[in-house]
């Protein structure tokens, strides 16, 4: 016996310890007959505060607790591939390990000298991303968007495209998202024979906040195994990083810690930094991460969202107003950016085309307002050209996706960046001025069509 429960609420269990020497932060105390497990979060004298792994219904004062030999840990071997874990490192699919080799999920972050910043460009085959926000190995790409504008579909398409061409293993970390989607992703990967090339860990939205806040640690440990032991360039998908912060706020409220704006915990910024700094490439291999970031109340200035974005190398912003017009992926190109949009990285042609397109689309927005008042006939020829070409560009940047075939009934397409540059240049030059704009919606490359005819 190490201690006993003296008080409890949903997420906060007060434990009287026999001796404060035997317990440290991160230890797990438990009572197996009550299926109760608590990770120690605070210690004051011989009183410790634990956060429960599961619901606490029925627990009482006086329950006697023992200590597990180790804190939170997870399998650290080749056997992780093809498996699905919960946040606490247990398998969800009823499988068993042949040999248990575990490692703690908490380790020190890499030092400056360990961090590797070199990487080659990684094309996704998604036109709007490759054109406006290309990424390279080792990149951190944020995927932002309010509820229901297509974040998860985009993540699934990225898994499908990048990962099928990449040949490397991938890790999927589901934090606070729908269990249905998690299970469907699992089934789809299994069907596509991709499951044994990846590993998944879930702390989904039906789980208590402890579970949702711990999935990321296990996920990163799995990723580090692939990077450090298998020396791979790993793909890491996190859906959704915001839910980690959300779970942390729930816990800190129950621990009666002082909140900052909107009820976020005081330690929010440092919590995020610790996680994000752990996601890094080193001499063993790279970690390229796609991190979905939920935007609460469609408020881009939300403190948690801003704190996560500050770690990203690029961001793709999904916009409800664009989704409303049935333009998918509903990317807002004005808010989307990448550190690679640089003449030295992507070359002069691509760079100039991006600038030109943004110029066109900006003018298009202004023109829409003018048209609303004066009607389209009042525009100068030049403005009319900009207006109609922009609409073609806007349509051209939609794309049929493999994972959305059920919604659109159109077969998914992967498009080479060279084709994108060629098509965009042709539209801007006016080569397609007499083609109807609807010809450009939901297609792959356009000039291919011309050659076929």
């Amino acid at each position: 016996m190490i201690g006993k429960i003296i008080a409890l609420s949903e997420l906060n269990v007060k434990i009287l310890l026999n001796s404060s020497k035997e317990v440290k932060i991160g230890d797990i105390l438990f009572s197996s007959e009550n299926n109760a497990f608590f990770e120690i979060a605070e210690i004051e004298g011989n009183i410790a505060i634990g956060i429960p792994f599961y619901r606490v219904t029925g627990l009482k004062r006086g329950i006697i607790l023992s200590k597990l030999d180790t804190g939170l840990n997870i399998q650290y071997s080749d056997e992780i591939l093809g498996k699905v874990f919960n946040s606490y490192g247990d398998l969800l699919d009823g499988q068993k390990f042949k040999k248990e080799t575990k490692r703690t999920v908490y380790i020190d972050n890499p030092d400056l000298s360990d961090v590797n910043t070199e990487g080659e460009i990684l094309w996704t085959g998604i036109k709007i991303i490759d054109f406006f926000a290309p990424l390279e190995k080792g990149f951190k790409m944020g995927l932002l968007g309010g509820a229901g504008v297509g974040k998860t579909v985009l993540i699934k398409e990225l898994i499908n495209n990048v990962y099928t061409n990449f040949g490397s293993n991938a890790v999927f970390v589901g934090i606070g998202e729908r269990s249905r989607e998690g299970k469907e992703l699992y089934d789809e990967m299994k069907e596509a024979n991709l499951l044994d090339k990846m590993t998944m860990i879930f702390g989904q939205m039906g789980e208590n906040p402890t579970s949702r806040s711990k999935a990321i640690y296990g996920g990163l440990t799995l990723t580090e195994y692939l990077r450090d032991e298998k020396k791979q360039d790993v793909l890491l998908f996190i859906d959704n990083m915001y839910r980690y912060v959300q779970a942390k706020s729930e816990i800190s409220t129950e621990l009666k810690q002082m909140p900052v704006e909107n009820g976020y915990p005081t330690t929010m910024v440092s919590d995020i930094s610790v996680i994000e700094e752990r996601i890094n490439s080193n001499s063993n291999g790279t970690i390229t991460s796609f991190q979905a970031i939920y935007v609460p109340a469609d408020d881009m200035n939300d403190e948690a969202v801003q704190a996560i974005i500050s770690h990203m190398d690029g961001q793709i912003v999904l916009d409800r107003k664009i989704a409303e017009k049935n333009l998918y992926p509903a990317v807002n190109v004005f808010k989307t950016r990448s550190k690679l949009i640089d003449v030295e990285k992507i070359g002069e042609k691509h760079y100039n085309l991006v600038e030109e397109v943004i110029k066109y689309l900006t003018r298009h927005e202004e023109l829409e307002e003018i048209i609303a008042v004066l009607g389209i006939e009042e525009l100068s020829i030049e403005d009319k050209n900009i207006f109609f070409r922009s609409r073609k560009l806007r349509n051209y940047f939609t794309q049929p996706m493999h994972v959305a075939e059920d919604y659109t009934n159109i077969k998914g397409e992967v498009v080479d960046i060279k084709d994108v540059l060629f098509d965009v240049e042709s539209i801007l030059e006016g080569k397609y001025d007499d083609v109807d704009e609807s010809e450009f919606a939901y297609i792959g490359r356009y000039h291919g069509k011309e050659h076929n005819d």
Partner: protein
Amino acid sequence: MSYIENLLDNKIDSMKKAENVYDTGKIIKVKDYIVEAKGLLNVGFFEQVNIGDKAIGYVIEILANSVIIAILKEYKKINVRDIVYGTNEEFKSYISNHYIGRIFDIFGEDKLVNKPFTDLAKIKIENPNIPFMDRTSVSRPLLTGISGIDLIFPVGKGQRQLIIGDKKTGKTQLTLDIIVNQKGKKVLCIYVAIGKTKKEVKEIYYELSKRGALEYTMILAAFNDEKPTVLSLTPYIALSIAEYYLSYKHDVLVVIDDLKRHADAYREISLISGKNPGRDAYPSDIFYTHSRMLEKGCQHKNGGSITIIPVVETKGGDITDYISTNIISITDGQIVLSSKNFNKGQKPAIDYGLSVSRLGGAVQEESMKILGAKVRRILLDYIEKREVYELANFDEMSPTLKSEMINGKRILDNLNQYKYSPKTKEEIIESFDFIKELK
């Protein structure tokens, strides 16, 4: 005398004989429906406690020297120094085989006659989560009879589809239409009224009764004047009942009307119990409150399913407020109703641009899927172009644009449907026959 009073009387009698008394305590603080008691040394979290014959409550927090209790039913005013009795059992609700066709509450009382059902059995308020591997993909359609939904934003068995909109945009009506359309389709329906007036619930009862929907529908009600604690537990109990039927491989449809009221009740409890307020003064766990509830919706591998249709009321047509976006981010799609469309006479007043079904064609049969994708594309194209060309002269439009305008309008008109006039799949397909020759 109500069932509860009866229960209490029996309890008190047995207490006098010192039977089943596990633990006692004394009230030391009363703050609305949250009270604090000394004693109760052996009480468990979420245990039911009785305050003499005055009230029923459950434990929400166990402190080192006292216990915090949330009151569900208060028959007489609680005073400091009242005695509290533990029951050594977690707070549970009831299930009866005779719920179908009746209005009842979480205490197992038939509200139409104010008497408890006679065959009550206890059920847990919340069961453990549906295991990850027990879910299978949502793929069977749950037909609503509304062409705008069945074609464009289809609902599948096991899906969570939100209905969201301002007051007076036909939210409740839409849910009733969906329930009525389940007739003869072997779907058990549970309508959950949260914070509705007694008059509203009675009207709903008569509407469903008139259309023969009570043969397969039960109404679980927490009226406006119930304690927020009752309002906050009610939808969980509805889902617990649904899970009971799910275990017998039934298809269940749960309508929760509405979750904004539920969120407000939960906020009230949190603030009164002294928790820190977060965004819009809601507590930080408001997301979890709804996410774990709605995660009960599933297609189970045993063949049964729980479909959930929650309703959320908005203000000023703004679906981007905190609670709305939270719930949108949990559900598998949303039907947005707009008061502008409603006033223009479009029924149901669906905003086709803002509505979404994340499952889309996966829950449609082939014929509906192909037609739906086409209707949606032409319609959304039309709605967008209509704004751009609002001032343009129709006669000067290109022939393509002209026909787009005409066809778009025709589709929109064709989606109009008066209440309680469901269409079958065949009728929907037939009514869109004209779309065949369009590109």
